[in-house]
């Protein structure tokens, strides 16, 4: 921290006060009874795991959602925002994680888009001159004539911020602002935010990066499960304490690791291993790098991390959907063949995150969907044929094992409940998972019974000697079910810990990007070395 927080008098009126804000969606409590103050001249960090309710709360503050209960008080007056415009008029501006700019327009045009102060006569020159003036006024350098599509993420963010500030925002809300920035750009951003704060304005910065929060904020509010779990002066906080607050203490440690007596032991050699593997995303950025990880037969490996830390890329590497841009993927110690089909043939099943859109053809019947993994081999396939009666038999078999009640096999699979779809996908994948099963967020959107069924499936598969990877945002699930837990943060594998003895605070720290003390971890590299 390079500057002291702005001191606020006790009686000073908060820029924004939220009193008992609640917001419910069907079946979900997004926010409940959230109280929050934002004082002039401070930077407040809003910390929380994915799904903790940060985005919903900010959408309420910026007029996108209307709260189901509670009050929004701006400068001491209760307000009610019918539209985002009302919020902007009250001086609240938000920079979203995904920018809301028109890529084909210039910076100047984007600044003036949908703004009642935009002059009636708009020539290129007028807009660019005005933009230049605004840029100087707020100390945010932008190139008015540049087309937004040609700008880097950092430059686009500056345009967004300038757009918000030019509308006379006194409270600036930034959603994960550093996620798309280089370290240099992040430093520039923080400098600009501090300058903004010095003028008596306020900032809310949404983040789950502990270091960043410690660096920039004056106070921290931690959201957990839609509720405010506490607001602290940053100088009183430490990363472990924030991590613990963020992750929570309500986790019930149970051991679901019990093996059947006849269960196969953990295999000597890994079934899949990643060696210094990395993945490049469509923009060319390494979104996962230097991951060295081994999955053994007969174990369940949990993968923890806040959303977007590289889970998708890791899943891709383990299932053949992504080709490694760096390092390599080995199956049974041999270089893995290319392509998802080859991985499936090698005995690696995959329950993807979004089953309806990734693992199923929603409009097709159950039989066609159940043949997805076995249509190449006899009896369904072979000789270039597709035998629909054999596919129906296969589907019947899967339906029976999955214990799902269906009207008939021709029913479009989208008409089944989410739980039944998940069961069918799981059973279909388990059928082919001779070596391993990779399950991404298997419990998402399911009720408790369906989640328990999934866990039972995984245990059975583990007992049968296959390796199971479970990627989840539910720490409780991971801690209770898996043998080891790998923690991802920002595209890196932070550590792999034995689940039974893993410390929740440590996991929280690792998820937040802090390296945990060495003795607490079973380092991935060590693990690899031990196998080599």
């Amino acid at each position, binding site marked *: 921290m390079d500057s002291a927080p702005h001191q606020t008098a006790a009686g000073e009126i908060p820029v924004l006060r939220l009193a008992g804000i609640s917001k419910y969606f069907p079946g979900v409590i997004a926010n409940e009874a959230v109280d929050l103050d934002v004082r002039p001249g401070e930077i407040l960090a809003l910390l929380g795991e994915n799904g903790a309710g940060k985005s919903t709360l900010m959408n309420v503050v910026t007029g996108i959602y209307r709260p189901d209960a509670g009050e929004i008080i701006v400068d001491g007056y209760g307000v009610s925002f019918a539209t985002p415009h009302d919020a902007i008029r009250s001086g609240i501006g938000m920079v979203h994680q995904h920018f809301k700019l028109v890529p084909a327009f210039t910076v100047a045009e984007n600044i003036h888009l949908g703004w009642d102060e935009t002059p009636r006569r708009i020539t290129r020159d007028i807009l660019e001159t005005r933009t230049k003036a605004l840029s100087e006024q707020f100390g945010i350098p932008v190139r008015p004539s540049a087309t937004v599509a040609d700008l880097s993420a950092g430059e686009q963010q500056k345009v967004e911020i300038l757009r918000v500030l030019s509308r006379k925002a006194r409270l600036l809300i930034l959603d994960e602002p550093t996620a798309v920035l280089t370290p240099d750009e992040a430093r520039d951003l923080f400098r600009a935010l501090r300058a903004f704060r010095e003028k008596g304005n306020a900032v809310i910065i949404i983040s789950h990066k502990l270091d960043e929060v410690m660096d920039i904020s004056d106070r921290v509010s931690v959201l957990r499960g839609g509720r405010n779990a506490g607001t602290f002066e940053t100088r009183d906080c430490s990363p472990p304490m924030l991590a613990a607050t963020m992750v929570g203490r309500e986790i019930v440690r149970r051991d679901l690791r019990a093996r059947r007596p006849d269960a196969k032991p953990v295999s000597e050699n890994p079934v899949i291993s990643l060696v210094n593997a990395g993945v490049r995303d469509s923009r060319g950025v390494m979104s996962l790098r230097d991951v060295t990880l081994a999955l053994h037969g007969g174990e369940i490996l949990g993968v923890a991390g806040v959303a977007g830390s590289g889970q998708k890329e890791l899943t891709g590497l383990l299932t053949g959907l992504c080709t490694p841009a760096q390092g390599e993927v080995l199956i049974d110690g041999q270089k893995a063949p290319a392509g998802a089909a080859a991985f499936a043939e090698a005995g690696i099943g995959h329950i993807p995150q979004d089953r309806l859109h990734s693992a199923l053809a929603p409009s097709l019947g159950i039989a066609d969907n159940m043949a*997805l993994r076995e249509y190449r081999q006899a009896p369904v396939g072979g000789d270039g044929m*597709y035998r629909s009666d054999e596919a129906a038999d296969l589907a019947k078999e899967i339906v029976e094992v999955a214990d799902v009640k269906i009207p008939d096999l021709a029913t479009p699979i989208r008409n089944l409940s989410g739980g039944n779809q998940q069961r069918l996908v799981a059973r279909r994948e388990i059928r082919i998972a001779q070596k391993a099963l990779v399950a991404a967020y298997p419990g998402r959107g399911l009720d408790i019974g369906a989640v328990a069924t999934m866990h039972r499936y995984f245990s059975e598969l583990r007992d049968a000697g296959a390796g199971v990877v479970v990627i989840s945002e539910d720490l409780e699930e991971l801690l209770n079910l898996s043998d080891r837990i790998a923690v991802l943060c920002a595209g890196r594998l932070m550590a792999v810990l034995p689940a039974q003895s893993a410390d929740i605070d440590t996991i929280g720290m690792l998820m937040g990007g802090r390296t945990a003390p060495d003795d607490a971890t079973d380092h991935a590299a060590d693990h690899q070395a031990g196998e080599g």
Partner: protein
Amino acid sequence: MAHWQRFPTAPAHLVFLWRMAAVLTTAVITAIALAISGRNPFELAELVGRSAIGSRFGLEDLALFMTPLILTGSAVTITRRIGLWNIGAEGQFYLGAAGAAAVGLYVPGPSLLVVPLMAIAAMLCGMAWILIPTLARAYAAVSEIITTLLLNFVAALLVYWLVTGPWRDRVTGALVSTQHIHAAIPEMWGVVHYGFPAALLVACGVSVLLGRTSWGYEVRISGANPGAAEYAGMPMRRRIISVMLLSGALAALAGMFEVAGTVHRLQGGMANNFGYLGIVVAVLARGSCLAVIPAALLMAFILDAGIVMQTQQLAATTVLAITGLVLMLIAAGDELAHYRPVRTTPPAGTIERNVSA
């Protein structure tokens, strides 16, 4: 107490009944419109019935209309199965006609040898014509709707240039036409040539290809959900390419049949909207290759009825209006087929509901 409830699936027999009702309703609405404009709808209906299905001429015409419609309808349908639209059947029809004409004009020999060569040349030309949209779709995600559509105009002008330029009729001086092409698909029943049963066989073949081969399975999955195809490691790009090329070849085959079976010349304007009508046929067939056959029959009947009505001094645009009405009512019928009456269960009826579930 019973009420209507929408079910996610529509049983085939209900779809059939509702579609029959839609066609019937179209007939009734058309009759009313004709009656209002001072004509005798019964006389017209009788004439249409007699001319289109009650006479040898009419039946021959139906078959001749159906032949290209089945092929262009199949061409559009198979691209629908992979989630694409081939709007360019008209252009591929032209190219097929041109390719067939090239062989017919310049390769001497008996029909038995030349006609198969014409078919091969036609299909190659059709595939070549859809190649650029195909590659643009597969490798650059360029909308095939626009590219295939625009190439129609190029194809039409290309054929026009051929028949007024290098291939113009130097024998009889016929304009915008090549000379008579002697290699011909033999006639089997009046003017109906063997292209008609061939088109029926092609539709059945395509249906088998899509329903009974792993290639067809991959096409169906790719069309229903590209994400699932990627997940299963299907070679989507290759499937897109093969489907679009096949589609181009089918439309081109329609052009070849028209040249070698019906017109016996390559002429400007000969595609006659068969490519565009293939889209209508595909929409009516709802993605089923076998259903293309009855859909083509319905379309052929409408076109035939249109010709009868024109000779009864009704404008050709009447046909357009009737086609639109049929499409709209059939779409409505397809939706209504999802509804079935459900008995509002009194407490005692619980058992019954369980049984039906």
